[in-house]
Structures are given as C-alpha cells and as structure tokens.
C-alpha cells in the first residue's frame, strides 16, 4: 500500500460496522459481506484509528499498552495497518478539524507484544456478490433461468 508514514488514517465508518465487545473487535464490511475479528494488540490499533491518527501515533498507542522491542512493534503495526488498508477497513482521512485522540498514557502493567492478526471470514461473499448481469430482456430485467 506504499509509504503511509505521515498520512492521517481512520476507520471507514461509512462502510464498516464494528464493535468492541469482550476484548474483541467484531467488524463487518458492508460492501462485500466479509467479517473480521481482532484480538489483543489488533484491538489497540483499531481503537487508535477510530479517530484520525498517523501511523506513528498508532505505534505509540501499542507501545504504551504492550511490552516489546519498539522497532519490532513498529514493523508489525505497519504490516497490520497495511492489511487494514488493503481490506479498505481503514482509509486515508485527513483530520480536517475532526477530533484527534490525545497521546495515550503508558499502562502500569504491559503484557508481552504479539504480532496482530486480522482474522477474516469470507463465507458471506457468495450471498452478496452476484455474477455481472448480462442476460436481460428488452425492458432491462434479468431473464429467469428455467429451474
């Protein structure tokens, strides 16, 4: 997805439904029907992107919550944010006056950092994505195939 450092990023709230529940983020992409689950550091990353944030802000948020080598955390966070961008769950979104979250405070106890994972489920795609419609009648309505 290219160099996103310095870009302002944000969850695409218009096309994505998400809720943090039981320390898990459950996400539905309304465009394709795919759904996702996030755990652990992935939740921290997602929460940081609910408001416009830069990659360095997101890395800082994860470092405040998890214990690990900063360089390794930064690389893993960047890869994960790249995944979010690729799935169009997150988009480039300059703040334009929108609320920007303040820097987080370091947690008193930090669990060890593990690379975040984007769990993706695509089983609903077949219900949503129909083949392009080619066979229509003179009024433009799809022809019904004989059963």
């Amino acid at each position: 997805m290219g160099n996103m450092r310095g870009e302002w990023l944000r969850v695409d709230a218009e096309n994505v439904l998400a809720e943090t529940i039981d320390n898990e983020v459950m996400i539905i992409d309304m465009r394709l029907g795919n759904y996702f689950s996030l755990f652990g550091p992935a939740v921290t990353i997602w929460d940081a992107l609910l408001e416009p944030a830069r990659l360095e802000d997101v890395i800082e948020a994860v470092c405040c919550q998890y214990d690990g080598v900063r360089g390794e955390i930064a690389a893993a966070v960047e890869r994960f944010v790249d995944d979010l961008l690729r799935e169009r769950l997150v988009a480039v979104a300059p703040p334009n006056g929108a609320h920007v979250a303040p820097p987080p405070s370091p947690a008193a106890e930090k669990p060890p950092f593990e690379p975040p994972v984007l769990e993706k489920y695509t089983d609903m795609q077949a219900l949503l994505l129909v083949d392009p419609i080619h066979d229509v009648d003179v009024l433009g309505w799809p022809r019904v195939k004989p059963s």
Partner: protein
Amino acid sequence: MRRGEPATRRESPPALAFFDDVHAAFERAAGAGTSVFTCRLGGETVRLEIAGAFLDAPITAPLAHQRVADGEAAGLTTRLFDVASSGVPLPPRPWQWPDNPARGDIFGFGDERIAVSYNHFGHILSLLDRARGIGLWVTTDAAASVGYFEATPLLDVLHWWLQPRGLLAVHSAAVGLESGGILLAGKGGSGKSTTTLACLASSLSIAGDDYCLLSTRGDGQVWSLYNSARMERENFARLPHLRPLVSRPAALESGDKPMILLHGHHPEKLIRGFPLRAVVLPQIAAAARSSLAPASQARALRELAVSTINQRAGAGRAEFDALVRVAKTVPCYSLALGTDMRQLADLLEELVLEAR
C-alpha cells in the same frame, strides 16, 4: 395511487416516478381480481393485496398464524403481482446494474421516501413508499422462483416498514414459553433448524425458524414472523417423523430445502412471542448428548449480525447497534448439538425454565 392523485411524472423524483409506474402495473394485473390478507406482526397491522391466484398460497401460508380480520386498519398495505402469470410487464428498469450488486441494494436510486431492492436469486422487485405506507412486491416468474421466497416472503418490504417502528427482522430461530425464550442463531448448517424442530417434542413453543422479530423498543420482546421451518434434507434423518409434514415432498429428493408450515400441522406449538432470556448458538457435534457452555458476547453478535445485515437490502448501523445491545445484555451460550433429539429438547426446556 388507487385512492389518491397520481404523482406527475415530470415533477417526481426518479424513484417515486418508478414506484408509481410499478403501481400502475399492479393495477393492470389486479384487473383480474385480488385477494386480501391482513396480519398483525409484532403489533403492527399489515394488509396484503395479491393480484392473481398463483401468489396467494405461497405468500399467505407462512403468515397464516398471524391473520386478523381484513377490516382491521393497516399501517402498511403491500400490493403483489407476478409478471409471468399476469402477463403484465414491469416498466423499463431505470437504473444501471453495478458489476457486483449486493443484497439487492440499488445504490444511488432509492431515497428517503422510496426504498427499492431487486433480489437476483428470486428475481423479486421490492418497493416501499414510506410516506404513504404502500409496498410493492413483484416476482418476474413466481412459479420458477417460489422455492426461494415461499418460506420467508416480503422480507425487504417488511424490514423497511417495521425496523423504524422498533421491530427488527433477525436471522434467527426463536423458541420458548410465555414467560421467556431464546434466540437460536447461526449460519446455515449450524443445526439451528434441527434444534428448533426438535423442540416440537418439548413444552417449548416456536416463534420462528429462519427469521423472527426482535423489539428494539427496550422491552426485550421477541415476536413471531413466519410459521415456516426449513431443514437440510440430511437432518431429517434426526427427525424422521417430520417427513410427512414437508409442504412439497419432492423437495426431500431435490436440491430445494424442504419446508414445513407449522401452522397447518402444529398450530398449538406456535407462540406469538416472549421476553428474550438468552441467545444460544448451535453447532453440530459428534456426541449423542447435547451440552451448553457460556459463549462470548462477540460470538453471539457475530452469529446474529453477520447474516441479518448481509441478507437485508438497506440494513446497516441501526440494525447492527440493536444487535450489539442484545449481545451485551442477554446471556449467550454455545450449544454442542448431539444426536439425541429428546435430550436436546429437555436441555433447552431446562435452560428456558431456569432463565425465567
């Protein structure tokens, strides 16, 4: 409209003009006669005016348990016809198809007043004029697509009308007692319908198999929507005594999912609704005995929201937030679904009684 002034086409927004054109087609189809069916769904009265003979039975049978007197004042009147059997064509399609139409949504065509969808699987056009409380539901060839809509007809129109009135059509089964009951949520193949139909042998009654109505008014109430139940052919091996109840026995041998209309066979086992006490998430297991275990709220939300939202044109934030509230406020259980149907029914009965 039939009883009002028709909108002037040049002055109307495109969606309203199209609605009026389809309504005019209904009036031509209705020239051969209409049947009327009135029902009450979650306290909301809905009137159906069905042109022609073919659609009457498949549309009204799943709603038969909710029927009320035809003279009762209805908030929503939905008018239905079939292009093939009536010989009345639809007006020309006024929108461009996107490459990958989703859920039947017609992006960029409907507006705040007119909702529209086209279901490509059943070849069904649905429209709702929210201002006048008039719906339109048109099949291109009902005889060819009846297997698609006969269990859960009119879903888009009903959803658009009922959701703003605090009733959400949820992809879930519901079983229980007057004192309370449970939602059974899960994707296709999870054993939801097998679990529902197993309850016929218990004291629990059935509010729905594929869909039910969930009140979003804060009263925690579940309401029945349809009395139809469909189960995968192979699962009739677990409940073989239900085979004679299948509406179209040929479906037991063909690719269609066999359907049972409970109102015609077990009206005493249907219940109008109950307070929601728990969400149960079935999953087929290898053991004989079924068992329950606490499930995460996130999993309950996933099982309720993904299919409810992904199968309904126009569904989005409001529906999702309503299901979030359910997942966060009601106990959730996973059900390992065993092969002993009697024990399964007893287990769920015990859960419902304990959850009162």
